[in-house]
C-alpha cells in the first residue's frame, strides 16, 4: 500500500519543520522534522509521554510550539487555534473523548459544521451504515460508555472531510469488530488521498493499516520508514528504553484442573445477575488468573462493578473466601479482601491533582491510623510501591496528573493492591499504556498470582487475555458463553465465543 517514490516529489500535504515544545522545564518535543504526503497513513508510535499527543495537539492548534514551522501543501501556516487548524483541513480525534455530555450523539457529531443539518444527517447515517456500528443518534452523550464515546469521536472526525486526519489512540477502548470496520474506512480515506496520522500502542495495528511508521522517543524521532522495512520485533526494540531488560514473563504452569479442585475457590459467583448481565457462574481460585473476554458492551464491567457493591444485585450470590458478600458496600467489600481496578483511569481511578503518596494510600488511610495521618507509615508504603512497581516519579510528592499514562496506571494498581486484597478484579488494566509499562503491569499481575491472589482479568485485548490467563470465560450479551480451560485458549475460540457463535464440541 506504500506510495512509490515518485510521489515523494510532490509537495508534502503537511510538513513539520523543527517543532519544539516544552512545558515549564520539561522538554517534550525536540526539533521534530516530518513530512507527510497525500494519502499516507503514518503510524506514530512511542512510549507513554514520548510526546505524540503533544505533537498532534500542536498540529491542531491546541498548543503553540516554542519554535519551528508548519507548512501545509507548501504554504506556511500559523496554527494558532483549533479553528485555524480546522480551516486548514486538519482534524484531531483526541485521545481522551471530549464530548458534550448533555447533547445527543447527533448534536455532538454535527456541531460546528457549516453545512445544512439535513444534509449532514444523511451523510452521518450513511457513514454509520457503512461502518455497521450500533449507535443511537438521539442518545445523550453522558450515557455512553467510554468505548461508545470513542466511536462518537471517530465519527466526528470521519464526517469532517478533513485533508489531514489525526487519530490519537482511537482503538484503545474498542474491540475487534469496531476496529475492523474502522480500518476499512481508513483504507477508503487513504485511497482518496487523505493523509492520516495514526497513534497507537498496539503494534499489530501498525502493520494492518499504516503505510509509514514513525517512532518517537523522548521528543525525538528515532526511527522512520515505510512499514515494509520493519517487523514487530524491530518496533518493540525501537520503543523500549535503551537499557530496558524485558521482564521475563514466563508463564507458570497453569493450575491444573485437579490441583484446582483440591482448593477452595477464593471468589465464587453463583447464578449472579444484575443490570446488564444475568446467570453468571464463575469461580476464581487462589493463584489463578481468570480472563474475562468479550466485546464492548458485553456486560463485563457491569458484572465487576456489581460484585464490587456499586450497583444493584438482582439475583444470586458472591462468595469471597467462604463468606457471602453479596450486595455489601464497597468499603466493606474492600475490607473483606476484594478490590476492583476500574477501567476508566481518569474518571474513576486517579486523583490527578494530588500527589502519588496521597493516591497510593487513599484506600488504606484507615489502617494507617484511626483519626490522624501517620506520615511515616504512609511514606514507607508509598516508597515501597514506587520501588516494587518501578513507578517513574521525581518523588512520592509528584502530582499524579503529571505522570505518564503507564505510570498513572501503576499508581492505580498500587493504590488497589495496598489494600492487601485476596481477590483483584482488573478492568482493562493496560488500556492506553505503552509496551514498557505493559510489561511492568504484566509482571505485577504475575507477582500477584505467585502470592496466591485470585485475579479476574477483564480485557478487550485478546492477545493480552491469552498471554496472561489460566482460564478464560467469554461473555456475550450479559451471559457467560463458555469457559475455556488453558488448553482451549485460542484466538479463534475466544473470538467466536465473544461474538456468541462458539459451538461446544460436544454439540457440534
Amino acid at each position, binding site marked *: 500500500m506504500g506510495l512509490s517514490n515518485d510521489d515523494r516529489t510532490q509537495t508534502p500535504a503537511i510538513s513539520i519543520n523543527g517543532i519544539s515544545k516544552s512545558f515549564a522545564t520539561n522538554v517534550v518535543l525536540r526539533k521534530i522534522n516530518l513530512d507527510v504526503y497525500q494519502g499516507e497513513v503514518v503510524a506514530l508510535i512511542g512510549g507513554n509521554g514520548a510526546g505524540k499527543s503533544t505533537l498532534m495537539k500542536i498540529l*491542531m492548534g*491546541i498548543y503553540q510550539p516554542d519554535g519551528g514551522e508548519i507548512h501545509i501543501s507548501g504554504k506556511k501556516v500559523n496554527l494558532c*487555534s*483549533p*479553528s485555524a*487548524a*480546522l*480551516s486548514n483541513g486538519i482534524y*484531531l480525534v*483526541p485521545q481522551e473523548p*471530549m*464530548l*458534550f*455530555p*448533555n*447533547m445527543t450523539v447527533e*448534536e455532538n457529531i454535527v*456541531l*460546528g*459544521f*457549516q453545512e445544512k*443539518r439535513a444534509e449532514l444527517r444523511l451523510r452521518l447515517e450513511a457513514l454509520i451504515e457503512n461502518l455497521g456500528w450500533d449507535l443511537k443518534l438521539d442518545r445523550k452523550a453522558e*450515557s455512553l460508555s467510554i468505548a461508545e464515546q470513542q466511536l462518537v469521536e471517530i465519527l*466526528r472526525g470521519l464526517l469532517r472531510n478533513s485533508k489531514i486526519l489525526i487519530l490519537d489512540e482511537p482503538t484503545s477502548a474498542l474491540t475487534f469488530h469496531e476496529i475492523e470496520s474502522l480500518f476499512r474506512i481508513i483504507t477508503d480515506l487513504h485511497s482518496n488521498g487523505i493523509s492520516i496520522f495514526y497513534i497507537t500502542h498496539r503494534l499489530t495495528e501498525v502493520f494492518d493499516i499504516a503505510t509509514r511508521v514513525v517512532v518517537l522517543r523522548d521528543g525525538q524521532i528515532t526511527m522512520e520508514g515505510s512499514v515494509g522495512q520493519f517487523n514487530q520485533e524491530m518496533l518493540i526494540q525501537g520503543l523500549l528504553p535503551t537499557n530496558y531488560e524485558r521482564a521475563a514473563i514466563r508463564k507458570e504452569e497453569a493450575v491444573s484442573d485437579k490441583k484446582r479442585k483440591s482448593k477452595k475457590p477464593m471468589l465464587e459467583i453463583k447464578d449472579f445477575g444484575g*443490570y*446488564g*448481565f*444475568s446467570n453468571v457462574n464463575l469461580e476464581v481460585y487462589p493463584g489463578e488468573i481468570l480472563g474475562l473476554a468479550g466485546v464492548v*458492551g458485553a*456486560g463485563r464491567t*457491569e458484572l465487576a462493578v456489581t460484585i464490587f457493591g456499586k450497583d444493584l444485585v438482582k439475583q444470586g450470590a458472591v462468595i469471597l473466601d467462604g463468606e457471602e458478600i453479596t450486595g455489601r458496600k464497597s468499603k466493606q467489600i474492600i475490607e473483606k479482601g476484594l478490590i476492583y481496578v476500574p477501567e476508566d483511569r481518569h474518571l474513576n481511578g486517579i486523583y490527578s491533582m494530588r500527589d502519588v503518596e496521597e493516591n497510593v494510600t487513599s484506600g488504606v488511610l484507615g489502617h494507617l491510623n484511626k483519626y490522624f495521618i501517620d506520615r511515616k507509615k504512609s511514606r514507607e508504603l508509598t516508597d515501597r510501591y514506587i520501588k516494587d512497581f518501578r513507578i517513574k516519579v521525581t518523588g512520592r510528592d509528584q502530582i499524579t496528573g503529571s505522570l505518564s499514562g503507564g505510570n498513572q496506571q501503576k499508581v492505580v494498581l498500587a493504590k488497589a493492591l495496598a489494600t492487601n486484597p485476596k481477590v483483584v478484579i482488573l478492568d482493562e488494566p493496560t488500556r492506553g499504556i505503552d509496551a514498557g509499562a505493559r510489561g511492568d503491569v504484566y509482571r505485577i499481575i504475575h507477582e500477584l498470582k505467585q502470592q496466591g491472589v485470585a485475579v479476574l482479568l477483564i480485557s478487550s485485548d485478546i492477545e493480552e487475555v491469552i498471554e496472561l490467563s489460566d482460564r478464560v470465560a467469554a461473555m*456475550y*450479551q*450479559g*451471559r457467560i458463553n463458555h469457559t475455556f480451560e488453558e488448553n482451549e485458549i485460542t484466538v479463534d475460540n475466544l473470538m467466536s465465543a465473544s461474538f*456468541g457463535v462458539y459451538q461446544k464440541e460436544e*454439540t457440534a
Partner: protein
Amino acid sequence: MKIIAEKMAKTRELFTVAFMLLLFLITGLINPSFLAGDNLLLCFNGSVIYILLAIGVSFVITTGDIDVSVGATMGFTAAVCATLIRDGSSLMTAVVSAVAIGAVIGLINGLGVTKLRIPAIIMTLGINGVVRGSIYVYTQGKWVENLPAVFKSYGQISLFGFVNLFLLGTVLIVVGTYLYLHRARKGKYFAAIGDNIGGATLIGIPVDRVRITAFVLSGVFAAIAGVVFASKVGFVTPTAGNGYEMKAIAACVLGGVSLTGGVGSVIGAMFGAVIMSSISRILVFLQFSSNWDDTITGILLIIIVVADALIQTHLKEKARKERLAARDLKAQSHFEEKEVLAG
C-alpha cells in the same frame, strides 16, 4: 397522564410551568381574586425586571460561568438612565447610554474571565463591588426622583387593550433568544461551551468570543432591566438592585438552567423569574405576613430543585437499566433460539 409526566420531566421548562400553575392554582383556591385575568397579567407585568435579569444571567450560566454583578449593573444603569431623563435627555440617549454601560461592564467581566482567566464568580463578585460603589459615587448617595410623567407612563402602555408594552417586548425577546439558542447553528455554541469547554475548543468554536458575548449580553439585559426599573418604579435609590443577582440566579435555577452549564433554556428562566417575583404577591393574597417572604422562597426553591434532582436521577437510572436490560433480553432470545436449534 404518565406520558405527560415523562414529557414534563424531560422538558424541564414544562416542569417549571406546571409548578407555577400549581402555585397559582393553590393561591386561587384560597383567594379567587388572585386568578382574575388582570391580576395574573399584573403578576407577569411585575416580573419583567426579573425576567430580563434572568435571561441575561442564563446566557452566562449556560456557558458554564456565573454572573453575580447583574444586580449592581441594573442599579447603576437605572440610575444613569433616570438621571439623564430627569435632566432632560431624550429617551433614546438615556436608553443607549444605559445599554452601552451595561455592555461595557459585561465586556470587562468577559475579558477578565477569558483573558485574565479569573474564575467567573470572583471576577463578577469584584466587579459587583466596584459597580455598586460607583453608584454611590455617581449619585452622590442621593435618590434620583421626580422623573417626568411621560417616562413613567411607558410602563402603563398597553397594546390591544391588555398586553403591557414591556411584557410584550420581554416575551418577544425571550422567544427570539430561545429560537436563536436552540435553533440557530451558532446559538448552540453557548450550551456546548458550558457542556465541555475543551471539546468546544477542539471543534473550532471561538470559545473566548462566545463567553465574552454571554457576559456582554448579561450586562445588556441587566441594563434593559435597569431602564424598565427606572420607568416602572419611577425613582431610583442607590441601593436599587441589591440582592437581585441572587434572585436572578435563583430564577434560572427554578427554571431548570443548570449551574454547571450546558443545560436549560431562557423559557425556563422566564417562568422561574415569574415564580420568584410572584412570591411576595402571593403572600399578600394569602393574607400571609410578609415576614414569610424569604422562608417561602427558600422552601419553594429547595422543593423544586430537589424534586427535579430526584426525577432526573430516576429517569437516568431508568434509562440505563432499560438499556442494560434490553441487552439482556436480546441475550435471552438468542439463547432460546439456540436451544430451539439444538433441540
